[in-house]
């Protein structure tokens, strides 16, 4: 038995001795391959990650620089005035004072009188962020015929907050007008330092101009608003 082992050992030594010159380069090649997988590939991945991070940082920095150059030259008074106008046109929440003001100012300008009306406030804490525009719905009885009602809806579509007339029912000298006042919530979390801002476009400026005209048409001192028989009902 021991003799057999000795023979095998001798054979192994013989083979080793004969191929000694191959062993070292093969070990080096295997080590290189191992190094490639263990070291070079992770390092390469790290390089790609770093380059992506640098690219991201660079684009963000460029964006911030552009934002800085835009906001640093804006006139505060102009911006505040434009902001106020557009927020009144499409409020960030249900603007009941604005709505009541608009209804009464329109009725006065159209020369019609209003009956008792009610509206649904809805859930005040709801956060609607869909693409559709939420509205506060009103059904208003107007003591006027077709001409007075037409005048009323023409005017209310050019006042603040923006409204859409859904239906009109005229019966001799009284009418019932259903309309909704738009508002649009804004996710405040989306307003961060890293958002891209752009100056107001020419179309935007034209729209602001149009809204300024609407604003002038809907101006109505709140202190002189006649008390209307309005009742509000909260749901949910």
């Amino acid at each position, binding site marked *: 038995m021991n003799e057999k082992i000795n023979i095998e050992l001798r054979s192994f030594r013989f083979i080793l001795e004969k191929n000694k010159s191959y062993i070292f380069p093969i070990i080096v090649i295997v080590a290189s391959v191992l190094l490639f997988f263990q070291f070079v590939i992770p390092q390469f991945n790290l390089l790609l990650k770093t380059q992506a991070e640098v690219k991201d940082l660079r684009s963000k920095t460029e964006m911030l620089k552009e934002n800085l150059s835009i906001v640093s030259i804006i006139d505060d008074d102009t911006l505040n005035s434009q902001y106020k106008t557009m927020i009144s046109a499409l409020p960030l929440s249900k603007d009941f004072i604005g709505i009541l003001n608009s209804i009464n100012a329109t009725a006065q300008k159209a020369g019609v009188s209003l009956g008792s009306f009610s509206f649904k406030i809805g859930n005040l804490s709801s956060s609607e962020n869909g693409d559709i525009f939420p509205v506060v719905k009103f059904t208003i009885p107007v003591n006027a015929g077709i001409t007075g009602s037409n005048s009323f809806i023409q005017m209310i579509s050019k006042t603040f907050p923006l409204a*859409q007339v859904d239906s009109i029912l005229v019966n001799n000298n009284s009418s019932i007008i259903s309309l909704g006042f*738009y508002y649009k919530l804004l996710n405040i979390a989306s307003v961060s330092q890293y958002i891209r801002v752009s100056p107001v476009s020419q179309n935007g400026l034209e*729209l602001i101009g149009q809204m300024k005209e609407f604003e002038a048409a809907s101006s109505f001192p709140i202190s002189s608003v006649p008390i209307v028989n309005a009742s509000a009902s909260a749901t949910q």
Partner: protein
Amino acid sequence: MSTDINLLLRTNEESLKRKKRIKILNFAAIASLICIGLVSLIIFILIQTANPTAIKKEQEDVLGKISQFQDRQSKLFILNNRIENINKILKTRKDLSKTMNELLAKMPSNLSINNFEINNASIIIAGQSKSLYTIAEFINNLTDMVYRKEIIKSLTLNSLVLDAGSKTYQVSVKSDL
């Protein structure tokens, strides 16, 4: 017995082949080691040159400057958001007053409107007149509007009655918008 076998030559050939193989193997080993070393060195240098620290610092500087205008930035963002949304509203909202005006323009002057109902989908008009010609003119005008695809898509005559007491013709029509 063969005496011309050259054993020495064969041994030399094999030895040469072996030496060549070893030479190639040694060369491959050294080349792979150098390649790995070079690639590692290049990657290391590239990582060092792509160091984001400088850009981070620059970004912090810009952020520091922009924080003074945070209020303006937010207002400008909201302003642009409102412009975009108001544009959408103005493009999509239905103008019932325009529809009403165009329909009223087609009403004969002798026709008095008793009932007028309009919504986003349909319109119902009920009126009366002492003259049947006025009623006919009214229906013809609306029929023309349907043919010309102006505002209304269809026209249905709901009723046409003669009120013998007041001697007036009463008409009611319905149209889809």
